[in-house]
C-alpha cells in the first residue's frame, strides 16, 4: 500500500517547511510513527512521522530544500509496488522571492501530535469553533481553519472570517538590480515569520509609547534574599514577569486582544517572554503567570528558553500570550521601544538596571534604576489606562512585598 509523505502543517502559521535532515534513507523499512525527517518550520524544528508501513522508497524533497505545506516529500510503499504514478506528481521547487500572492496551501490532512490552537482563538487548545457554513467554505477552498481568526462570539469563526482569510495579503517584490558586492542570504523560516508578523503589526496598529523609571533597590534586595534562601535562581526578569502579570489582573483593559470588531478581554494572564535565538527571536509563553510563584516562573522561563534556543518549542508553548515582555537589559540597552505582538494590546520593553544618581528622600544619592517602556495599541488602550497600568507595575517593583498578595 502506497503512503504519500507530505509536508505537514506543523504549526498554526506554517506555510512551507524546510527539510533539515532525513533520519531515514531510501530503502529503509519504516512503520507508522517512526520519525522520518526533521523539518524546520517558521518557529521550530519539528519531527515528521511516518503515516504508514513499508519501505521509504523515494525521497522527493532533499535535505536543505523547502516545499509548501501539502506537497509530496517522499513515498512509502511495498518493496515491489509501482510508485511511478505517485512520484510523477512531484514536489515543488523552492521559489526565490515571492512575486505572486500566495493562495491558501493545500489542506494538510494530518495534524501534529500536540493539540493546536488557532491564532486568535484564545487560550486553551482543542476544538476550533466555526459555524457549519464557515467549515464548509473553508473545506471547499482548502483553507486550514487553524489559520483563521474568529470574530464571532467566543472566537467562533464565521463566514466573513473565512472570506477575509482567503483574501491574500499583497506581497513585496524584490527590488531590481542594485550595487555590486552583495550577498543574498536566504531567509530562514524564523526570519520570514518575524518579518511578516511584525510588518503586519506595526503598520496597522496605532502604537504609542509610555516610559517610566523604576527604582529597583528593593527589588534587588528581595532578589538577593530569595536567591540566598532558595535553590532556584530568580532573575530580575522573572520578577518583572510576575509583577506585570499581577498588574494585568488589576488592569484588565491591558490584557486584551484586538478582534477586528471587538476587543477580547481575557480572564487569564499569559505572558510571552521574548527570547533571543540564533536566527532571531521567539516568545515562549508563561501561562497563568499571575498565579505562579517566582520560582515556578523562573524554572519555566529557563526551560522554555532552552527549548527555544534548541528550536524545540511546540506550538502551544509559543502561542496564546495575552501580553509580552522583551528585555534587552543584558545588552546594556537603557531603554527601547518594542513592537507589539499582534493581536495583543501591549508589550513592555525592559531596559538595563543601572546605578543612577537621583533625588531620593530629599537627598542626592545613587540608586539602581530601570527604565521600562510600554508600547500600547491605541485602539485598545488609552494614555491614562496605560499610564495607570505602569504606575501599578512600578509600585509593585518598588515594593516587591506586594507580590505576596
Amino acid at each position, binding site marked *: 500500500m502506497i503512503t504519500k509523505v507530505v509536508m505537514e502543517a506543523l504549526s498554526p502559521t506554517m506555510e512551507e517547511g524546510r527539510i533539515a535532515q532525513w533520519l531515514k534513507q531510501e530503502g529503509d523499512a519504516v512503520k507508522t510513527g517512526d520519525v522520518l525527517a526533521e523539518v524546520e518550520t517558521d518557529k521550530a524544528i519539528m519531527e515528521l512521522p511516518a503515516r504508514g508501513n513499508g519501505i521509504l522508497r523515494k525521497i522527493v524533497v532533499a535535505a536543505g530544500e523547502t516545499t509548501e505545506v501539502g506537497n509530496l516529500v517522499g513515498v512509502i510503499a511495498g518493496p515491489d509496488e509501482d510508485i511511478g504514478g505517485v512520484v510523477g506528481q512531484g514536489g515543488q521547487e523552492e521559489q526565490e522571492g515571492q512575486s505572486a500572492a500566495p493562495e491558501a496551501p493545500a489542506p494538510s490532512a494530518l495534524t501534529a501530535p500536540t493539540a493546536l490552537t488557532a491564532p486568535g482563538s484564545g487560550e486553551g487548545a482543542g476544538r476550533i469553533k466555526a459555524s457549519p457554513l464557515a467549515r464548509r467554505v473553508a473545506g471547499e477552498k482548502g483553507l486550514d481553519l487553524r489559520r483563521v481568526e474568529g470574530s464571532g*462570539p467566543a472566537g467562533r469563526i464565521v463566514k*466573513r472570517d473565512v472570506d477575509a482569510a482567503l483574501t491574500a495579503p499583497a506581497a513585496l517584490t524584490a527590488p531590481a538590480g542594485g550595487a555590486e558586492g552583495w550577498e543574498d542570504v536566504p531567509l530562514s523560516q524564523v526570519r520570514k515569520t518575524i518579518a511578516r508578523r511584525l510588518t503586519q503589526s506595526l503598520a496597522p496598529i496605532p502604537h504609542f509609547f509610555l516610559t517610566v523609571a523604576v527604582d529597583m533597590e528593593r527589588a534587588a534586595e528581595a532578589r538577593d534574599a530569595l536567591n540566598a534562601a532558595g535553590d532556584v535562581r530568580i532573575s530580575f526578569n522573572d520578577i518583572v514577569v510576575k509583577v506585570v502579570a499581577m498588574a494585568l489582573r488589576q488592569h484588565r483593559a491591558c490584557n486584551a486582544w484586538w478582534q477586528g470588531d471587538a476587543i477580547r478581554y481575557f480572564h487569564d494572564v499569559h505572558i510571552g517572554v521574548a527570547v533571543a535565538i540564533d536566527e532571531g527571536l521567539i516568545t515562549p509563553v508563561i501561562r497563568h503567570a499571575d498565579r505562579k510563584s517566582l520560582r515556578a516562573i523562573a524554572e519555566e522561563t529557563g526551560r522554555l528558553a532552552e527549548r527555544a534556543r534548541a528550536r524545540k518549542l511546540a506550538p502551544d508553548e509559543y502561542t496564546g500570550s495575552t501580553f509580552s515582555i522583551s528585555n534587552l537589559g543584558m545588552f546594556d540597552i537603557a531603554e527601547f521601544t518594542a513592537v507589539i505582538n499582534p493581536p495583543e494590546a501591549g508589550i513592555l520593553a525592559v531596559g538595563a538596571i543601572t546605578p543612577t544618581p537621583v533625588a531620593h528622600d530629599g537627598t542626592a544619592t545613587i540608586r539602581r534604576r530601570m527604565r521600562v517602556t510600554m508600547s500600547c495599541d491605541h485602539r485598545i488602550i488609552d494614555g491614562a489606562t496605560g499610564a495607570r497600568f505602569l504606575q501599578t507595575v512600578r509600585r509593585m517593583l518598588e515594593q516587591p512585598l506586594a507580590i505576596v498578595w
Partner: protein
Amino acid sequence: MPTITYRDALNQALREEMRRDPTVFLMGEEVGVYQGAYKVSRGLLEEFGPQRIVDTPIAELGFAGIGVGAAMVGMRPVIEFMTWNFALLAIDQVVNSAAKMLYMSGGQVPVPIVFRGPGGAALQLGAQHSQAFDSWFAHVPGLKVVAPATPYDAKGLLKSAIRDDNPVVFLEGEMLYNMKGEVPEDEYTIPLGAADVKRAGSDVTIVCHSKTVAVALKAAERLARDHGLEADVVDLRTLRPLDVGTLRESLHRTNRCVVVEEGWPFCGIGAQVVDDLQREAFDDLDAPILRVTQADVPMPYNKLLERAAKPTPDQVIAAARRVAYLDR
C-alpha cells in the same frame, strides 16, 4: 383587482364553496342570525338557510363531534369555534376523532372537516382568551394546520381546506379580520403545504406566519433602511405539513435565520422550524437560528404588559443583527 378585508375574503370563500358543493355547511355559535361573532359569516344564513348555516348552543365538544359524524358520512362541515381558546373543550373530537379516524379504520373512513376560528391574542382580552395553540394541533398526525396572514391567502387557503378530504385546523386572527388586501375576482385556490416568500432578500431569512408576518415585514423594512440587511421573509402559511423546501432554499441563500411566532416559546412552531433547518441545512448555517416568540407567560391584561409580551419588530431586528454578527 379589488381590495377587500381578510374577513370578507373568508366570507367569499365560504360562499363560493357552499354554492359549489351542497354538502358544505357551516356550524358554530352565532354564525347565523347574529351574522357571525366576527361577521365572517355575514349574509350566509340569508343565502343558504338554517340547515346549512347552523347556530349552535354553547357546546363545543358536542357540535365539533356532530361535525365529525356528518363528515364521516359524506358531508363537508365547516365548524367554527368562536375563538380557538374554546376549542380546548372540543379537542377530543379534533384529535381523538377527526385526526385519527382514517388511520384507525384502516383507511376506510375519511373526515373531510374544517375547524376554523380566530386564534392567538387580540387586545387586552386576558389570559384565557389570548392563546395560540398552533403547535398543539400541528403536533398531531392526521391533521392539516393552516394559518393565513393576508386576505389573498385566507380566501385561497380556506377554499382548499374545504375541498381537502382531511381534517383541517384553520387558524385565523381577530387582529387580522380588518386587514385589507388585494383579492382576485376570478376563482383561485392556494394549495395547502406551500409557504410563500412575502419579501425577497439575501442577508437573513425571517420565518413567520399569521400575525407575525406583519411584524416581520416591518422589521424587514427597517433592517434594509437602517441596518443594511435585506431580509427574505418567508410566510409559512401551512404549519402542517411544513414547507421545509422553501425554508431550505431561503436559508441556502442567506445562511442565517430568525423565526418569529406568536405562541409561547417552549415546543412552539419555531422549535420545529429550527429542528428541520439545523438537521437538513446544517452546512448552510453561519449562525444559530434565533426565535422571537411571545413571552413565556399567560397573557396579562394591562395594555403595556401585553404589548411587552408580544413579538415586536424591534426584537426581530435585534435577532437579525445578532445572526449577522453585527451585535454579539
